[in-house]
């Protein structure tokens, strides 16, 4: 580009520039011009919006589930340290909100207990611990945050005959379709067996949806685990023993622990 270009020639280059199709020498010339030309700068902004729209001409393809799973895996360590559901965000109406007045004291108490637990864990200098501990902290932070969610409900799971001493509580948000399971004293499992938490709409076992697959802690203590599952008013939670490592799509054994939300 030895000869000076007219402005109309620069305008012509703008299209190739936003498409990323200029040759290196043209791109260099145009970038230099762009930094001092408000007309071309405005034109480029408008053309960039057009180029953004061209993406929609591609045949639509659903991304595989593994794509978001990969992103989530990468961001999890940082996300665990900072999670904020906007309290004022509008959400769809939820019948679960009807339970709010009676549950508030329980939820506040749960939040206080969880805060103590989180602080205790913090004192153990968890920043230097492994990913298992980070996940637990994330679950506890999630539980604390859910306790402040007006759509959240606290469900105590009662042990069935044969599981003496097992205790479990679910804090579940119907607005977010997610929750946290706090569980302790579940019996140890045989090899290649797992526990599975289910969300059971209306208590109808044939409608059960997988919420979480886990194995109990080897040592004493409360296990805190996050899960995601559709949650409606009246969703019952149940824990069954299932074949590992991935559990089952539907329950294949009698529940060890079952809990239903309180009804008005």
């Amino acid at each position, binding site marked *: 580009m030895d000869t000076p270009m007219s402005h109309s020639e620069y305008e012509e280059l703008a*299209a*190739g520039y936003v498409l*990323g199709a200029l040759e290196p020498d043209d791109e260099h010339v145009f970038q230099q011009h762009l930094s001092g030309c408000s007309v071309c700068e405005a034109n480029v902004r408008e053309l960039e*919006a057009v180029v953004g729209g061209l993406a929609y001409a591609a045949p639509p393809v659903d*991304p*595989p589930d593994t794509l*978001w799973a990969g992103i989530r895996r*990468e961001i999890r360590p*940082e996300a665990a340290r900072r999670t904020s559901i906007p309290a004022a965000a509008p959400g769809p109406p939820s019948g679960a909100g009807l339970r709010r007045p009676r549950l508030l004291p329980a939820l506040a108490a749960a939040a206080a207990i969880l805060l103590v637990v989180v602080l205790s864990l913090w004192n153990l200098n968890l920043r230097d611990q492994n990913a298992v501990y980070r996940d637990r902290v994330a679950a506890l932070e999630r539980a604390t945050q859910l306790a402040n969610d007006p759509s959240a409900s606290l469900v105590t799971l009662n042990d069935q005959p044969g599981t003496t001493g097992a205790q479990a509580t679910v804090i579940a948000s119907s607005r977010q379709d997610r929750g946290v399971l706090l569980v302790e004293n579940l019996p140890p499992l045989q090899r290649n067996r797992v526990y599975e938490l289910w969300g059971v709409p209306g208590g109808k076992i044939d409608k059960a949806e997988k919420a979480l697959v886990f194995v109990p802690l080897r040592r004493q203590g409360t296990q805190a685990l996050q899960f995601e599952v*559709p949650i409606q008013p009246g969703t019952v939670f149940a824990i069954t023993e299932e074949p590992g490592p991935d559990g089952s799509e539907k329950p294949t054994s009698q529940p060890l622990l079952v809990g239903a939300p309180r009804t008005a």
Partner: protein
Amino acid sequence: MRGKAYRGLRDGQLVELVAQKDAGALEALYERYGRPAYSLARRILTDETLAQDVVQEVFLSLWRDARRFDAGRGTVATYLLSMTHHRAVDVVRREENLRRWRTSDEGLELEPDPKARVEDEVEASERRTEVRAALAELPAAQREALLLAYFGGYTQREVAALVGVPLGTVKTRMAAGMRKMKEALQDAGREEQHPWTRQ
């Protein structure tokens, strides 16, 4: 179903939350733009794994440095899709053997998508129809130049060689095609007001 609490938020608000390392906000943006971004990457790269890598890197880039997004320069949608395009083109230029699409219209359906899912974002579906209609209105030579550059990742000189016309002709065709696209989309009244460009 995920992240109900974020659905009422505008894109710009979600980016602000992402800057504060709010994973739910990133997930909400992914739910809005993950599909068009992945569709674009698949169209350019044709390879599922490479397309996944590109889209993952786009969203991780937003996660790592959301402050780079400048609302004054354009919409969140444009930002994410432009980044997807740039990265996919970078990959395709490194992987010459991926350039299977010798004609730019191949693999594109310029009619409205008959398989659009009911649950597909209404805005995206409308946008797709609108952009395809605008492309279909272009003279074939201009459309070919635009699509070879955009989906094929070809430079203007490469387009000229592929089509068999002088470089200057390609520059003119691209400029005319982009100008007509801009006018068509503005005529549709969507450039500023369309929901998918919400900030």
